[in-house]
């Protein structure tokens, strides 16, 4: 096999891989649109926001509580995991002794590798009974937020770590030479420079949070309602799909695909948003 021929073979392989990536995304979007088309073309699209409640077997399809549920859980989880992730990353990079930093980083990586269903199971056994002892029934928005925080924060930490690594070492050395304290170096030099990377991480992890299904389904209670407090159950768009898809027919099925399409566009929007931050130059 001549080198030239082998080169061509490789290039064809790479092109094929790229094509498969693009095609699979196209195919999924096309499939979601196709499956929900019967709804998208119908005139009363507003029923998904105006119906009285979500009772698909009675022909009522109100999606609002699920949209609110998804958004609340996502924001709740990000509220906890953003500071947790950034602080852990700062600790790993600038405060902890080398061996502790290594250990911490490995632990975070392992946490990130645990399947989310394990967190869900742990949530049922530990978090839900604990919350139930404060206020019944335990399966609630708060339980979902706590479990989701554990799922999302390792990823947030790793994103923050790589953002901190990209900070210009020369600037840090100069600041040390000027006798600035460690805290003011972090506050005035490192964090502003790492900002684009941190923002990208936050946005991508938000996409992860809103897409998480199984663990959330296990601990959130899944009652279709806009929760009045942190201790009330909620249902997210993803749990709704997972709970009902196996039994859904006709319009009900299309409604579930519509919520899938909605999620797809939210995640797509988040990814595009993160691209916007990436283009900001890292050094001044």
């Amino acid at each position, binding site marked *: 096999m001549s080198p030239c021929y082998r080169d061509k*073979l490789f290039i064809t392989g790479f092109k094929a891989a790229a094509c498969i990536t693009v095609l699979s995304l196209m195919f999924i979007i096309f499939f979601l649109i196709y499956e929900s088309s019967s709804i998208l073309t119908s005139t009363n699209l507003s029923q998904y926001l105006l119906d009285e409640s979500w009772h698909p077997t009675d022909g009522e399809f109100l999606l609002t509580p699920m949209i609110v549920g998804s958004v609340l859980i996502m924001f709740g989880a990000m509220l906890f995991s953003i500071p947790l992730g950034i602080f852990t990353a700062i600790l790993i990079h600038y405060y902890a002794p080398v061996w502790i930093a290594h250990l911490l980083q490995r632990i975070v990586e392992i946490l990130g590798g645990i399947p989310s269903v394990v967190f869900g199971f742990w949530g049922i056994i530990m978090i839900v*009974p604990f919350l139930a002892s404060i206020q019944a029934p335990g399966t609630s928005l708060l339980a979902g937020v706590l479990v989701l925080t554990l799922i999302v924060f390792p990823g947030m930490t790793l994103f923050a770590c790589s953002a901190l690594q990209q900070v210009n070492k020369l600037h840090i050395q100069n600041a040390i030479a000027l006798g600035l304290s460690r805290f003011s170096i972090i506050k005035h030099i490192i964090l502003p420079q790492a900002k684009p990377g941190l923002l990208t991480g936050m946005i991508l992890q938000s996409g992860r949070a809103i897409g998480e299904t199984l663990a959330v389904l296990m601990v959130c209670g*899944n009652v*279709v309602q806009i929760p009045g407090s942190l201790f009330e159950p909620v249902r997210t768009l993803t749990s709704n799909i997972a709970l*009902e898809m196996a039994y859904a027919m006709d319009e009900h099925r299309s409604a579930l695909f519509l919520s899938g399409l909605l999620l797809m566009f939210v995640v797509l929007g988040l990814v595009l948003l993160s691209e916007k931050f990436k283009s900001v130059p890292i050094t001044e």
Partner: protein
Amino acid sequence: MFFYFRFLFIVVLIGCENPTQQSSENTSDTLSGKLIITGSSTVAPLASELAKKFEDLHKQVKVDVQTGGSSRGIADVRRQVSDIGMVSRKLKAAENDLTPHLLAIDGVSIIVNAKNPVLELTAQQIRDIYLKKIVNWQSINGVDKEITVINKAEGRSTLEVFTKHFQLKNRDIKPDVIIGDNEQGIKLVANNPNAIAYVSIGAAEYSVQHGVNVKALPLNGVPANTQNLAEKRFPLSRELNFVTLGEVSPLSEAFLHFSRSSQIKPIVEEYGFVALLSR
């Protein structure tokens, strides 16, 4: 590169042609071909197990089992997309175009945490609990704790059996938790001393026997177990049916016959259902 693709193309062609050749050649005495079974996810695990055993007996047969609920089972058989439908209830009057083949009986049992002192609930109490007219265990067992009501997601056949028997409407039920499958309900009840749920009797009995922290409540004085189900004494129960449309192919006929033979009884019982063989 080109050779590779041509090779692939030939493989695909061979792959496509093979089954048709086989089926035309093997029409002698053994059964062959493909059987598609769709429908209720309650019946599907059992049907898959039966299918495996059936495939072992008839090497030329491929059985494909897909879930999607009883309604899909019926719709697929009517549209002739599938050969046999799985339906986890009695056929309705409007479905008399289909032929039911009773496979087994399944029951729904009310479960509470094993620590809950309650021994039995009346139908009225169960109704009131699910309608949130009774919100505290105090009036029932003297424990001053709020009741956690666990309901099933819309479309599940256990929900249908439950609501129909207790004359409830799903939209009137005010649950604290909505679950998908039986296992999820059992886990929640095992970890919450104040919860109440309803699950398939098979699943409940299996959990109780394996030391899970739940207990199944009797109904109208009849203990919720598979034996009472078999003797048709337990009120909260449902039929598990295979359904077919019109003339049945020899292959489907053979499978239906197999599913009624005595050798499948242990398999049916393994799933917590009650086999019905005396026909």
